[in-house]
């Protein structure tokens, strides 16, 4: 950006947008250049959305936007105006676990945990469209998410297990601890 000393850094206009995040409406003022990920994390507090690469490569920041899987680091906040966003915090009611999350526990999949919000959303997205995916379909659906600790085997198992739960109508589980 060219240097213009007459311009104060915050002279860009604030734009008021409405986001529906996890079922609740938020009116929030954003800058035209602000990314959805920063608004979700720092203005609304949904820090379950993680930033791993900032360019849509790692899948840690994916959210559902009107049901579609999007990397929130590549979406300008203004473009999410009026959309319904689901983050990992909205997968289950407070105090409950979603089938996907229960399956992560059942398969002992968790290591550092930084990729899990993204995987949880990606699996939820898969199951919304296809409640009985094959192993190949699972791999295809999760090929945009990176897990450097290497929990991939467990994540595939968890996706299968979650699909069973969902098909049995078991969507939410109590947290034991």
């Amino acid at each position, binding site marked *: *950006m060219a*240097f213009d*000393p007459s*311009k*104060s*850094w*915050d002279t860009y206009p604030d734009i008021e947008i409405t986001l529906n995040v996890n079922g609740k409406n938020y009116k929030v003022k954003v800058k035209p*250049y602000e990314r959805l990920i920063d608004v979700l*994390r*720092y203005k609304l*507090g*949904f*820090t*379950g*959305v*993680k*930033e*791993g*690469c*900032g*360019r849509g*490569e*790692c899948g840690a920041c994916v959210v559902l936007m009107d049901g579609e899987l999007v990397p929130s680091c590549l979406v300008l906040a203004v473009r999410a105006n009026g959309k319904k966003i689901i*983050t*990992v*915090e909205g*997968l*289950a009611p407070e105090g409950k*676990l979603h089938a996907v*999350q229960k399956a*992560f*526990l059942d398969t*002992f999949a*968790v*290591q*550092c*945990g*930084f*990729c*899990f*919000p993204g995987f*949880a959303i990606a699996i939820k997205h898969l199951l919304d469209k296809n409640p009985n995916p094959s192993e190949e379909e699972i*791999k*295809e659906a*999760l*090929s945009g*998410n*990176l*897990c*450097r*600790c*290497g*929990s*991939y*085997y*467990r*994540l*595939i198992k968890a996706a299968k297990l979650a699909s069973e739960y969902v098909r049995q109508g078991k969507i939410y589980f109590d947290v*034991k*601890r």
Partner: protein
Amino acid sequence: MAQAQVPEYVRVVEELFSKYKEFIYVGKYIQRWDAVSKITGKALFTADFLKFYKDPVYVYTVRPKYAHAYIKSIDTTEAERYPGVIKVLTAKDIPGVNDVGYVIPDQPLLADKKVRYIADPIALIVAEDKYVAAEAAELVHVEYEPLPVITDPLEVVDLKTLKEKEHVRIHEERESDIISHFKIRKGDVEKAIKEADVVVENEYRTGMQEHAYLEPEAAIAIPEADGGVTIIASTQCPFDVRKAVARVLGVTQNKVRVIVPAIGGGFGGKEDVVNEIGAKAALAAYYTGRPAVVIHTREESMIGHSKRHPMVAWYRHAAKKDGTLLAVEANIVLDTGAYASLGPFVAWRAIVHSTGPYKVPNARVDTLAVYTNNVYAGAFRGFGNPQVTFAFELQMDALAEELGMDPVDLRLKNILREGDRTVHGQLLTKEHGVGLEETLKRAIEVIDWYRKRKEYSEFAEGTLRKGIGLALLWHGNSIGVEGADYSSATIIINRDGTVTFRTGLTDFGQGAVWGLVLIAAEILGVPPQLFRIEPPDTSSTPDAGPTVASRSTVMGGAATMNAAYKLRKRINELAANMLGCSPDEIVIRAPEKEDVKPSDVEVFCKSDPSKKVKWTDVVEQSFWDGVPLQEFGFFRAPKAEWDEETGQGAPYVTYTFGTMVAEVTVDIETGAVKVDRMVTAYDIGKVINRVGAELHAEGGAIQGLGYALMEEIVHDKNGVVRTYNLSNYYTPLIDDIPDEIIPIWVESGFKRGPFGAKGLGEPSIVAIAPAIVNAINHATKHRFTQIPLTPERIYLGLKRAGKIKL
């Protein structure tokens, strides 16, 4: 060592090792403490704390245009005038010492005379906004005098003669750009080679690997009233960050507090770079009096933190007709990049392991670490061992081929067993736990080695070829001569019967700290669910040494044992008084259920279980009787021995052993490799945290697969990093993994490890690449000697050798 000289804390570990035969928590599948918080998105990682600090300043690092240049002048005036910029900091603004070198003081926090790699920090923009900070960085005008850039370590040193070449000096303040030179001298190598039936020599190259932990580095500094600072940071080593920041600020260590929240992966990479970014955030907080934030973008992370050392090595192996190894000779050069970082220690670990887990009667090895203008290399899971293991395990296969022997039979002829001496002259006894042969035998049995080795030799289906290969490993436990290997832990039993666990060891995904809780739970009888692990905090958790070198379970576990042992002794005496039986008879047991409560735990007499009382009552009574229920445990590994001139001694307290087997399918027309199956057989003495162990076997294999086939940081001739994000630096994704990984656990028992345990964190990557490449060499009937073995390299290698015509 005479019995009387064994410290009490070692004696406790030995006593518990011989006493415990059956386990309730150790070695069982138990959900880690933070699993729920991580899958619900509630776990707080460093950057997440920003939602609580509403008015922070953002710190952005100004980096150079050249990878090697003198700095003639730095003009910050234009940047300072940029709207939203609060301050621009350069070297002259550092109140303390301008250095963040880890092993040697060679790395300025902010360069003022010279830049030595493409991300060398020159200045810090402190601004109201992260975009403003990045924009203003463009307005810092630096006048450079560019110097020739060295990206090849062989421009610094000759691989044959090991002499330093004429070159433009990178660190002219030092005597030489060779920073370390370690040696092994044993027997008479020349004589052995003359007498040998077969001699095999080759050159090997390994790539610069990036940790690519999913959470980029982050630090938040909050100024404190007494001139000190509190830092929240994604670090493996909070006490190292404290030391580095105190030095840069010029304050005492007790004025710097470092808190470690959840960490999104480390693999050795979050050691020294966090000293650097912690210091940057601290400086900005010091000058502005406001919370200051450094969060690396992925690009800054990839060009701005340490990497795995690339290696160039020349190896010569000599053997008798029957396969008996006579001698190993090697010249090993490690490229440590612009700064030493942990390079000298990496080079030392490399040479200790350089001849492999074999009986080697004669050896001459030289290992050098040299400076270049590449991104600096430091700690990365395996720490020098994956590089040399790649070389010596390919040498073993080359030797087997020359001898017409099966690779397994050649190894069985030479492996270290109980009663053998290592190349350093260290005698391996039952106390060490030497389970290498068992890992080898069980691995080849489960994979049906001999049949597949023969079948795959003849396999050819269109352009597809199949191969099976293996590699063995050893990995020294403790940090050896690199430093004081101490650890510590504190256990506090609270008045409601719950337990608080404190250690300065960190968890960055590996779950080793959970292993320590399982150890404490086993000894106390209180289930792990009733423990709370407090986040590492230099103001409250004890200094347990750095979380490195696969030492958490072994050293931290031994310290934990000491704390738990002392507590249990006091509780037994108290309960014995309450119940009227002897202290030895006290049993503490909890019912098996997930949501167990302190009042569910029972304390009773073994001979008469009807004499029982609730755990919570014992705890309450302890307060009335004045029996303290807090305890500190300490452990220090026995000192390592190493002769600088000959490499003789006892470098490590014991070794983890392993056998890796890989099956591959190679498309010889495209060079594409599919790893079909792997067996990972480890002797880790005793499995403590079973979930963690299995995840390491899988995760280490996958990261090792990346190291073998796809991962490499590439610099161009100007020292510019061409692979600066995950779009051009490839790591394994979910469809790159083998169809299955079969884990095998050998529990040989190490007398001075907690319940016999040895380390696994690093070993889990050490021998993956050579196993895969040996399998590819078997499939293609070609001798590839370089990783990453990308499709291009396979295709071009086969084409140049005339093995394919395309």
